């Protein structure tokens, strides 16, 4: 009985989602990404997310990357709990003065080679919080940024596209072979 219930739970969304073109794009993007990640990082790319002042909108969409619809882990991309295990810092928010030191320390704790992706309009250019006494501003005011993914918040699919662009850039930087 239980198995039956669970199986029916599992089946419904997959079948309904099949003709969705967005899903095809996700897989195409993801597999391209996986090929590059494999070359660079030996099958995996680990990401540490840092909210440096976000309204939490970006976090919701970054979370979505981990759900069964986007499922980034099948492409070898995985979120980790410690910056010490990370290749990429995914930073959101206009960096607040109160989070500046924490962001700097997290960056320092991430081993090289590392990349920083600024996610969202606030992380990219301060957004609507520009001019406030409490914010430092865009992430690149605090740590060097390799890529900006704009949007308020960017859709999960745009986050995936952004990670590909990052790997393109990283490929240019890291000697091949």
């Amino acid at each position, binding site marked *: 009985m239980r198995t039956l219930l669970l199986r029916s*739970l599992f089946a419904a969304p997959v079948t309904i989602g099949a003709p969705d073109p967005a899903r095809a794009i996700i897989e195409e993007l993801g597999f391209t990404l996986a090929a590059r990640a494999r070359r660079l990082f030996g099958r995996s790319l680990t990401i540490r997310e840092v909210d440096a002042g976000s309204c939490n*909108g970006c976090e919701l969409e970054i979370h979505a990357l981990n*759900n069964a619809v986007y499922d980034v882990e099948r492409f070898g991309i995985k979120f980790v709990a410690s910056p010490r295990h990370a290749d990429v810092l995914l930073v959101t928010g206009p960096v607040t003065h109160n*989070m500046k030191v924490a962001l700097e320390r997290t960056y320092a704790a991430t081993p090289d080679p590392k990349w920083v992706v600024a996610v969202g309009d606030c992380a990219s250019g301060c957004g609507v919080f520009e001019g406030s*006494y409490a914010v430092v501003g865009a992430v690149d005011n605090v740590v060097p940024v390799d890529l900006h993914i704009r949007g308020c918040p960017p*859709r999960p699919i745009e986050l995936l596209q952004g990670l590909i662009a990052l790997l393109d850039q990283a490929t240019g930087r890291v000697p091949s072979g």
Partner: protein
Amino acid sequence: MDRIAAHLSTLEPVAQHRPWPRYQVDADAWTAIGERLGEGGDLMGLWGDAGHVHLALRAADLPGPAVVTVAVKYGGFPSIGRHHPAAIRLERAVRDLYGYTPIGAPDRRPWLDHGAWGVRAPLGAAEASGRRDSADYDFLPVHGEGLHEIPVGPVHAGIIEPGHFRFTANGETVARLEQRLGYVHKGIDGLLTDVALAQAQKVVARVSGDATVASSFAFARAVEAARGFEAPPRAQMLRGVMAELERIANHLGDIGAICNDAAFALIHAHCGILRERVLAAADAAFGHRLMMDLIVPGGVTRDVAADGVRAITDALEAVEPAFAEIVRVYDDTPSLQDRTCATGIVRPDLAARWAAGGHVGRASGRGFDARRDLAYPPYRGVALDVPVLSAGDVNARVWVRIREVRTSLRLVKDWLSSLADGPVQAAVPVVREPREGMAVVEAFRGDLLVWLRIAETGRIARCHVRDASAFQWPLLEAAIEGNIVADFPLCNKSFNCSYSGHDL
């Protein structure tokens, strides 16, 4: 007679504050009101303004909410927090932002000011100040044998907002938790002072991204109250649709995340899929997954897309049976209940004293829901099941969400099947005088308050947003006491307070 009402009955409300009255009171009345809060009335908010401090409240025999205002004298005002602890953090915030001292306050430590702004009292005297080490903060001492401290944050292990938790534990048992927040303070009160209305509405939509619809809804209603007009009927219904979709999406996310923290990833996976369906439908119908910036004073910025009603209806029809199965699995799994039942209990008397809204209050016997109790459109005349449980544990907070999802599904379907025709936006009327407005809406986490003053030019002279989290965060400290450290994520997730909405 209730003493709060008695203090206000002899006073004349200030002109042009709508829809509820605001009273300018002297220090004695201010203090007398503060003494009654918690038992004789609910604190709904406390915030600074140039030369004044405002306090929003509800009391049993007042016809609706009210605001009382005290003038700042010699740089201070009588502390409400000394009589009513729910006001303590709000007063610490007022002092950090405006420099006004809550006289007699029991806790004089800074709250939002971590010494990193380079300016003291940025919305008051705004004097340049040296930066100090933000780690230099006096956590309350805890004494006893065999105690140890566990500092956590501000950067947490998951994809979560930043904040610091200082646990004092005895073995695995939490003797005390002290929160230190303010890390994502963005100066929103400052950004909402003397600003164009269009800019203010963008900032308000980003107070807490997960409650963007509710924040914009409250802001729009406060402007409409101040300017004395209403959005057209079709816009009212679309607002309701958006607000309930936001509630469904967030509750689905929370129910899944709570089960995930109880090692039941299966439910998390299914809730994630359902949440995704709701967000995709919102995107198809309104062009934005979180429905940000859509509700504005006067209505909504865009009508539902031609196939949007269908997209939402289809999504909800898929969600409904799947959600019923999820609930059945939750209810039939003893190993899950073993984690959620009797864990993280909030006592009903605390929920009442703190006037905790949303699932935190309703799981602990406090039956307030702004949709029903302050009946704003489109909820006027709508029969609403407000679930009120008394266990106060994680399980009760899950069940409040479950029942609210069911209600929200019904509301959305009802509105979409009977959408009024007509325009979706009315122009904001020009009024050549300053006006004040206030609104309270029920966000997914509880009541959310917006207060504002519009200058005769139409600019927002001052606006303050109070998220439900303000009165829920302190109760999390109480809920975790006596629980094991490993249950903290579970308790925390069952509250799901906003850091950004609290820190502003």
